[in-house]
């Protein structure tokens, strides 16, 4: 299933995920006429190629369908892409360029950042190159014109490295994004604390300083007035600071020690 980072909207599927899904499905659908064309030119009969092409197309259509669960759609799109890539190698007689395209398609599948799709991709490519390639090497490796032993293992390993690199880059990007989010949250909290400190300064400290200096000047009227205003400001400020949604008032009112009204002589 798509990662938390990609599936974060109300339905669980983000705009980013939908965009990537659209790219993968479009690519899978685009492969179908190309496969038919190359197959026809290579002399592969329509009867021979139609069944696997239909399977690949069915995967793509199901992946595009909103009726299929979001958890299955990446898997279906990946299977369509991989089947298309495998067919491409087969109908082109194992030409070098088709192997490269297959490896590229495997890497495209990692766009989902989905471990299940990744594991299916890697398993698929090893199955194709090592098992099927070992059973019928001429159908898959003939176009490479090489006698290199274990060529299937080499190609499968290369595709695995490409796909794994894609997943690792996602993990790094995901960790960076998470760190960034944490930093942004910390900064927002710090800004909020600074804002509250400013409010305390403006509403309480300024008033108390005025009271101190008014008393020093012997201006009791100003001292009393300012003390009253400051008290009201402080109460208002505390009221606003306490208004936190979900806060448990009984916990807030449970003091660990009695309030201090000043140093007793």
């Amino acid at each position: 299933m798509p990662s938390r980072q990609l599936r974060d909207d109300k339905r669980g599927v983000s705009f980013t995920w939908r965009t990537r899904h659209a790219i993968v499905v479009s690519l899978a659908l685009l492969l179908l006429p190309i496969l038919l064309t190359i197959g026809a030119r290579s002399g592969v009969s329509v009867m021979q190629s139609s069944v696997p092409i239909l399977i690949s197309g069915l995967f793509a259509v199901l992946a595009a369908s909103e009726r299929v669960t979001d958890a299955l759609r990446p898997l279906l799109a990946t299977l369509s892409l991989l089947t298309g890539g495998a067919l491409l190698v087969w109908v082109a007689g194992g030409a070098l360029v088709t192997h490269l395209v297959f490896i590229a398609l495997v890497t495209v599948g990692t766009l989902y950042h989905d471990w299940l799709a990744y594991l299916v991709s890697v398993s698929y490519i090893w199955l194709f190159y090592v098992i099927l390639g070992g059973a019928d090497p001429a159908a898959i490796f003939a176009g490479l014109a090489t006698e290199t032993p274990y060529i299937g293992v080499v190609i499968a390993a290369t595709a695995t490295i490409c796909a794994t690199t894609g997943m690792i880059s996602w993990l790094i990007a995901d960790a960076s994004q998470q760190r960034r989010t944490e930093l942004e949250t910390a900064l927002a909290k710090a800004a909020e604390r600074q804002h509250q400190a400013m409010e305390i300064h403006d509403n309480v400290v300024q008033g108390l300083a005025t009271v101190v200096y008014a008393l020093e000047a012997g201006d009791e009227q100003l001292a009393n007035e300012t003390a009253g205003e400051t008290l009201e400001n402080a109460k208002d400020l505390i009221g606003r600071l306490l208004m936190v949604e979900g806060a448990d008032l009984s916990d807030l009112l449970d003091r660990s020690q009695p309030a201090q009204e000043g140093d007793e002589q």
Partner: protein
Amino acid sequence: MKPIVQDNSPEVSGKSVHDNAEVVELILIDDAADLRGILRRLMERSGLIRVVGEANGAEEASQLINAHEPDVILLDLAMPGGGALELIERLRIERQGMTIIVLSGYPTSTTAHECIERGADRYLEKGKPTSKLISEILEAHSIRKGLL
């Protein structure tokens, strides 16, 4: 600075205050009008400081400073529209002889360093006794003038 015409000040520590026997002209910059008024009364009562102007923000302060060219400015950091730190920095460049004192409600550790870096001579916390404020102001001014 002008000669002192009276000296009924509270006890002000330090030799500079009484020995120099001159009145320091000061502009008060704070957006709290009551606080400005009471500080003005207390400082002028000492006979050592004459408040030649009051401003509630950086822009008004600039105009008053140009008009009166005071010896000292005493300013709060939090002002409508901000600009206190920029004012300190600009005045330090333009008016080397002017003493700049910050009088703030913020704890010293968090903002004092920044103010001194920008060019303030002293950083004082609001609520200190006036005698202490006056003593600090005069001492800082004497140092700025090279009298100590």
